[in-house]
């Protein structure tokens, strides 16, 4: 039996649709149930739901053989997992944003508010720009407006939230979308099942 970790929240529905496309269906309504673990109708797969940021960890440790999560989360957790497929939903950009029409002068150390401290640090370290990271867990756009930070690093889909808060994209760090994650050991020890699922999902995506 393969164990699959899925994100709660906005990724859940497209993830379940893809699994259904690959022939993995559930008798219960996974999205509305309060349960956290579900077995597929043919008992060949078990799915559980966790916070998006935790999916790579479950897969890296082998608690799940397979997971579906955004590339942003993967880059942030730096989990060592296989990532063979782009699942073609949840498209967004990881960006550096700041007040619109800024004067271009920035302090010797830029204060950046973010949910992505590792991505922020890696990006600026590679460019030799000193930053102070202000870790926040939500409403990141608020930070520059009230003087907590000079800039933010966050994901944007349409850019509307930024605009409404008087911010603009300054630099794009990376593109993100949903990825299939696979535990390295499971890829070897459950090879037939895992590769079968990759192929089925690849078909379902295209």
């Amino acid at each position: 039996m393969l164990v699959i970790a899925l994100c709660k929240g906005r990724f859940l529905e497209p993830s379940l649709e893809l699994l259904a496309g690959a022939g993995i269906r559930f008798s219960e309504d996974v999205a509305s149930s309060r349960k956290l673990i579900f077995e597929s109708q043919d008992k060949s797969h078990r799915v559980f739901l966790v916070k998006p940021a935790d999916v790579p960890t479950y897969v890296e440790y082998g608690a799940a053989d397979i997971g579906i999560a955004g590339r942003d989360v993967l880059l942030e957790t730096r989990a060592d997992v296989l990532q063979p497929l782009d699942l073609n939903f949840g498209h967004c950009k990881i960006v550096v944003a700041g007040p619109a029409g800024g004067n271009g002068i920035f302090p010797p150390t830029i204060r950046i508010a973010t949910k992505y401290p590792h991505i922020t640090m890696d990006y600026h370290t590679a460019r030799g720009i000193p930053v102070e990271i202000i870790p926040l867990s939500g409403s990141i756009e608020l930070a520059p407006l009230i003087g907590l930070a000079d800039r933010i690093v966050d994901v944007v889909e349409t850019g509307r939230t930024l605009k409404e808060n008087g911010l603009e994209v300054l630099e794009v760090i990376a593109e993100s979308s949903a990825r299939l994650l696979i535990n390295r050991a499971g890829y070897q020890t459950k090879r037939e099942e895992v590769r079968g699922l990759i192929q089925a999902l690849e078909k379902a995506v295209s």
Partner: protein
Amino acid sequence: MKSYTQTPPGTQILIGRAARRRRALERAICSVFEGWSYEEIIPPIFDYYDVFAKGWGQEEQIYRFIDREGNILALRPEFTSLLAKTVATRLASSPKPIRLYYSGEVLRFEQPKGGRQREFAQIGIEHYGGAGKRADVEILLVAVETLQRLGIQSFQINLGSVDFFGGIVDRMELPKEQIDALKEVLNIKDQPGLETLLQTLPLEDRRKNILRAVPHLTGGRPVIEEARSLVKNPRSVEALNHLEEIYSIFEKLDLAQHLTIDLGEIRGFDYYTGILFRAYVRGLGFEVAGGGRYDGLPAAFGEDVPAVGFSFSLDRLEQIVTPTLDSADVEIATVEIDSDFDKALQLRKAGKAVKLCW
């Protein structure tokens, strides 16, 4: 809370049952190594920093310090550099092959992961002086027997070669940064990442298609045939011949079910020069062993000797149920305290375990 009440991050203490289990595991593995005529070597726990910087390479993970004379020293982050140096110096005139095994703690500054701490226990073998497939097969068989001895039924050894991928990129004449970028996406079988990267590389379609195939070249014998249809360069072809010979021997020994050819497996320390392998156990998310060939390493210390070896992670093996090791406790005689300890000494002379009651 005072910080000294806790052990530093990445260290741990094994007590009682956990320590007994560690030693039982260690003894079981050593007996397999000794059964294949590997001799124990007990190297120092620290050596000159240059030994590891030159041999192992991962400089940012080495714990280093300066002694009172100003020498830069390092706590051993692995055994292979130490052994290669010893073989190239102290043992330079010894008859070959030289078979050595070691067991002990190594220290690396890295994030604790998968049950492995910053100080963790490695146990492994190294074979010096055997260049061809025979030495490769020998150490693979020792690895297989070790897992079997521990009562582990379901395991896979994932076998690749640095020369297959090396031969492919040799021909492409790419700068090092681009080869590193390629390795990075291939290491995680990142297809979309590979496509993005290929768009920027000045390569003909035929070569791009070879790179596209690499992550999928994993499985049994058919994989070798598929790979043959893709590459013509001598280095890659030689690597395929070599892997096929090893695979054939495993088939004859009825062990091929434990061997997976994985030509997409190109992770590993820079010192690897030929075969490269990792062992996985069903139900554990991390590899339990890794190894390969490192022919250039002894030469870095002055003596050109072919070398191949592997190490097991004891910390990870401990996470697997190993039924053969859960032995019954020794029967202990409980002795009421007698003023002259007479009874206790008599029991000890008779070879009995005693426990004095206070």
